[in-house]
């Protein structure tokens, strides 16, 4: 890092953190549309082109697996230009091995989920480190190449990372290669000011990446990038992780529940009785009549 920090950074230097979805169950199910090998070749070409655009650009690649996430490539670590792809692929293979060893399930239904929250957090930690390395640093942004469906269990963690990205002014771009839209990534791009895209022609992925996601943050002010027509703002409840439209909200910490709760599981505040009269009436010994409990 030392030789780079002494140079002056202009406005258009970027640090791009790419999160690649390596969920094997997802890739297994889309073998027909876009096999993983083609996908990787598009991505490698894209990363090379990013590094070509500006000498001081930096790229970091994180692999989002089914059970773990890890760094797979860091352009600031010294390596010769010819060896970049080699290094990346080697690290990727090692990562897949490690991920497999951590896998506890024998089989998985459908496409499974990948640990997007984990890799987002790791990306944000790396970016924070860059921020603290000194007053001169490139402008960071995060690009998510994601295909697996949204895991509702990760809702809270993902929302937290989105808000911290918003606070540090790091845009999260999303390129969704799966079959359906991802509500989490739509919200992420909307809130942090990034770009969300679901490419129609997956064969031309490289073209999509270099047209929409290659520009640095400074130049985005002059460009017209595709905007999604709407954002799916639905939340998941904190108790069952189901996506809900209407629910109950704790007035203290704003956590969302689908059913009425006696006590908030996040902040521990006790919710009062719905009717004041309830607490004063003695419990009815008559078993035929239902006790007035809120459903």
């Amino acid at each position, binding site marked *: 890092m030392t030789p780079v920090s002494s140079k002056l950074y202009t406005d258009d230097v970027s640090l791009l953190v790419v999160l690649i979805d390596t969920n094997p169950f997802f890739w297994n*199910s889309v073998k027909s549309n876009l096999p*993983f090998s083609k996908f990787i070749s*598009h991505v490698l070409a894209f990363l090379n082109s990013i590094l070509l655009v500006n000498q001081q650009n930096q790229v970091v690649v994180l692999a989002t697996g089914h059970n773990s996430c890890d760094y797979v490539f860091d352009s600031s670590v010294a390596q010769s230009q010819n060896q970049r792809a080699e290094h990346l692929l080697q690290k990727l293979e090692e990562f897949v091995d490690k991920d497999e060893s951590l*896998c506890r399930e024998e089989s998985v239904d*459908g496409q499974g989920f990948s640990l997007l929250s984990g890799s987002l957090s790791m990306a944000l930690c790396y970016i924070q480190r860059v921020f603290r390395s000194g007053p001169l640093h490139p402008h960071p942004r995060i690009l998510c190449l994601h295909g697996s469906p949204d895991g509702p269990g990760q809702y809270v963690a993902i929302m937290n990372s989105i808000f911290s990205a918003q606070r540090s002014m790091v845009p999260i771009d999303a390129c969704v290669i799966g079959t*359906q*839209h991802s509500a989490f990534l739509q919200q992420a791009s909307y809130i942090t000011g990034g770009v969300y895209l679901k490419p129609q022609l997956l064969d031309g992925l490289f*073209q999509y990446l270099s047209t929409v996601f290659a520009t640095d943050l400074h130049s985005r002010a002059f460009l017209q990038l595709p905007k999604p027509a709407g954002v799916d703002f639905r939340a998941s409840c904190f108790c069952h992780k189901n996506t809900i439209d*209407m629910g109950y909200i704790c007035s203290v910490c704003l956590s969302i529940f689908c059913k009425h709760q006696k006590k908030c599981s996040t902040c521990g505040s006790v919710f009062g009785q719905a009717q004041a009269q309830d607490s004063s009436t003695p419990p009815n010994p008559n078993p035929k009549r239902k006790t007035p409990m809120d459903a």
Partner: protein
Amino acid sequence: MAAKQVIKRAKYKSAVKDPGVPGILELTIERFVFRPNDPKSTTKLNVEFKLIKGHKFTKDGSKQALLNLTQDQGGNYIFEFTNFADRDVCKEFVANALAFHSESGKTIPEKSDVPVNEHLSTAETEQRIKLLQENSELQTLHKQFVFKGILTDAEFWATRKKLLEQSDGRRRKQRLALKNEMWTVKPLSDGQSNKVTFNLTPEIIHQIFSEKPAVRQAYLNFVPHRLSEKDFWTKYSKAEYLNSSRNVSVAAAEAALDEELAVFLKRDDMLADEARRKVRRVDPTVDMQADEGDDYIHLQDHGLVHDEPKDYMESQYEPFRKSFSQDLNQHGAVVLQGRVLDAELRDTRSVAEAIIRIKQAELSDEVSTRNLERDISDRISRMAEMEDLQGPRDPAVAPLSIKDPRDYFDSQQANALKALADGSGGERTLKSSVSSHEAYGSLKNLVSHNRVMGLTEPVMSHEVALKVLSALTQNISSTKFHLGSNPHESVLDRLPKSTKDELLIQWTSVQELLKHFWSSYPITTKYLYTKVTRMKDAMSQIYLKLQEIKESVPSDFRHQVSLLVHPMLQALDAAFAHYDADVQRRSTKG
């Protein structure tokens, strides 16, 4: 509301075509009174609002600004106003009065539960009326609910305190500062007699007390024990006159005779103390040493060159020498400090005491001295900053932005439509189960395949690239065309204007009603119970209105409109379900 009163010029007409009798209309919460300008005219009115059942008015922009107060027997009183703003003010007031009377008629036995009627000052009422006039949406809501008695005025504004506070902040009056003229002695002297007249006003007295602490102290000490106020000021004026003559020896002589006069003629030691204290607070990074070479304070006349030869001054005259530049500086400092005392105090003594109190408070304020010391040390450390010893600075932080809920409404609808257009794509996921070993194995194979084969050349075919580019461009330009370059324009704008307005009105009224509905739970008082019933009735009206809107729209848009209306209906349904459950619970218990 009991203190409120509206007085406006108006013409009373018995019929619309009637030219009208000009006069003054006075509205209070109990009654309205009309007094014609012409004392000989007989059309005086004094009618209680209890007898008025309703009011009608012409639309803004029509030829006449009329307000028609109707009685239930069929008689009515028509008033014409000079402009619509006046008429609106009266209209609001009449509505409030009517609401008040109709409500008080119903709830008199349960007065204890009704929230106390706010005693609004005229400033607050004016603010509310101004807000209503500025914001037409607010006005429609207000008209819809408050006029029909569904919501009271107090409830309506209770949720909008923030708006009121915002407009309030703009209205602070400017404070009046001290006059920036030194009170130089300009006595009126009569050329013939030996009399000199001085004019002292409270303003001048205030200034004297601010500038000359010795005079202040002397006033408190001498008046009323030793001197009357008039005597005090006479002596002061004499001293000023003597000073203006700049004859130090005369001043010394007079001072020797009269003790009190001496106080005014001597140099002000209290000022010297204050100056010393101020010097101690000066920023230590300011180099006072360098100034010492320029020290003119201790020179006679501050080092100013004088033509007159320096008189040999006897030491007894020293205390009586005053310097003009010192006075000027003190005057400047006082004026910049501003008016220490805001209130208009008539009594001189209280003015003096108040100023002393304030000054003492400043001096003895320990917190402020501590803060000051901290400030000084901060400033020193900042000036002597060394870059490599600096700690890490926190990175820049984006401010909190709370979005307007209107955005949510728009974007949610667009998404719902889009999801529909995409088809039920989400349901096509393969539900076959795959063994993890297989999955990982295939992934690893693909990766090693890549390692062996390397990147394909070219990465993709040029036809595909061209297709992608054209699709992207078309997508971007079409969204721009449809939605405009404003990213917040939405589906709503594609609908015909009247429908869009209707929908928005219904949406805002649903929001408003639901806000009040849900805030009334849990129901603890009778007042809340009646409020909830009112909300419920109003909400059931909305169902019909929404249905009407759906039917009035041409068939191409009907589907979109029903999608837009759907969440409103859902919210209303949830509210009704809660209400029914609540009613049932009460009936089983009671």
